[in-house]
């Protein structure tokens, strides 16, 4: 669940960056955070810095592998991979049409909400992604994106472990820096 959300956020954010040229994510500045909540204030954060980007004339495609997502507890990471069937669906894929995105200009950040298609757990669903992109020095664009998903939309059963059931709604936040190749 966490993984899915994270991936979605990453995809969206990356999509924002690229206008015409192929963009390359600077992995050292990529951060995907998936936040899930449980009863009595339980907070679970998954993090990853793994993201790839492909593009064609009309679409940006982002992939986030499930396996590298870490929640801070090894067993919980394994449960996450099992829940997402990572061996069968090893990556989360986000596709966003270029026409959905505004691109930043010098001293003029771009922000908005883009519609995309998120494929998670083998299920493709439309998603809304909020984003903000800002051109920085050296041709680097810094992007922040966020979205919320309901894991049940992707045929994922909210996990329950030793009396603690995680809420199906998951928040994903992405921060990344992209430079033109």
């Amino acid at each position, binding site marked *: 669940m966490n993984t899915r959300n994270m991936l979605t956020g990453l995809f969206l954010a990356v999509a924002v960056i690229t206008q015409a040229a192929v963009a390359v994510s600077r992995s050292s500045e990529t951060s995907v955070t998936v*936040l899930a909540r449980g009863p009595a204030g339980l907070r679970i954060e998954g993090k990853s810095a793994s993201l790839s980007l492909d593009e064609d004339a009309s679409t940006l495609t982002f992939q986030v592998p499930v396996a590298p997502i870490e929640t801070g507890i090894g*067993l919980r990471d394994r449960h996450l991979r099992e829940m997402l069937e990572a061996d069968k669906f090893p990556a989360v894929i986000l596709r966003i049409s270029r026409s959905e995105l505004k691109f930043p200009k010098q001293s003029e950040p771009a922000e908005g909400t883009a519609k995309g298609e998120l494929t998670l757990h083998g299920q493709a669903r439309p998603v809304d992604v909020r984003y903000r992109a800002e051109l920085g020095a050296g041709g680097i664009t810094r992007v922040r994106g966020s979205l919320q998903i309901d894991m049940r939309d992707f045929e994922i059963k909210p996990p329950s472990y030793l009396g603690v059931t995680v809420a199906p709604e998951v928040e994903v936040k992405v921060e990344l820096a992209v430079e033109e190749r």
Partner: protein
Amino acid sequence: MKAALLIFAAVGLCSTAAKAYPTMIRHGYTQCASCHTDPSGGTLLTQYGRAQSQLLLSSRWGAAEDAEPTAASRFLFGALKTPDAVTLGGWLREGYIWNTVDGKLVDNRELQMRSSLAAEVRLGPVRAAAEVGYAAAHTAQQATITRNQDGGNLVSREHWVGISFAEETGLVRAGRINVPYGLRNLEHTSFVRAATRTDINEDQQGGIALAITTADWRAEVMAMLGNYSVRPDAFRERGFAGYAELTLSPTVAIGINALAARADAAPGSPSPTLRQAYGLTARAAPWTPLVLSAELDALISTALGSGSLQTGHAGWLQADLEVLRGVHLVSAVEHLSSPAGGAAGLGLWGGAAWFVVPHLDIRADLIRRSSADSPTTNTFLIQLNGYL
């Protein structure tokens, strides 16, 4: 006489430490209610909490990082399966203490620190919890339920019934409850706990409390109606206490605390008094193995008859470094300026704890306390703690 008091205080240092680990913030656990039946932490572990104890606290002994918790994490090491609605646990803590006053050994002996059983039952939103145990003579006297003056007593640190609501975000309960104030630290005899009378070994109060726990903040407020282990009634404090803690990040939390309690009299003082404490707390794990926690309390004592007002403060700063999985080096510095007067006290704590296997740990502490008007005391305490 002064030496005798110091020895008595030192004995207090080693008495029953309850289980509470504010340092779990290093693993992103800023709130307590997932792992403990008390939403503000300490006391009985939930099933989830038992699992986390094995997964995060104990040495792994070669077990894979993603291995499921074993039967050893369960009640009675898995020998007795309990219904989901019932949570059971128990404590067995034994120790040995050496005390010196001005460098002279004045006391050394074995300590029976905690022997108790606890249970919680959940039926829909209704929750009920109780603990009963045995305390050796002259220990945990604020929690006794029997009246043996010169021998051991039965104790019950907590017993309450409550109703949870909003998908367990909230819990309102009534009974004998840990006072919601300050860090719920293991070092329950630290100056901050003693000066604010929020020692989870025995300073619970009867009353009604409302706790709210979310992923971003938690709070509990309590109307204190008196500790009914204390007699006569004139000595019982009544008032309010509460805290609110904000999660700034998964590994940083800050809190505010307040307590005001009135008693008609106190031992040696027939006049009514109002005791107040206002505190700030902070917990942070700047690096996963390292947790820093701090508390600073302003203390105010007012003699209601004469209107005289005395002030003081208590402070606590602790570092917990997990050098190997399950092995911790713990050090702290504390300061106390009591409203009751006397020179300010300084305490230094140093020690190590090893969570050897699930629910079994050993710990050694050296505590040095000094002030300008009292001899310096050193306490060395080793303890073995088992959780059933």
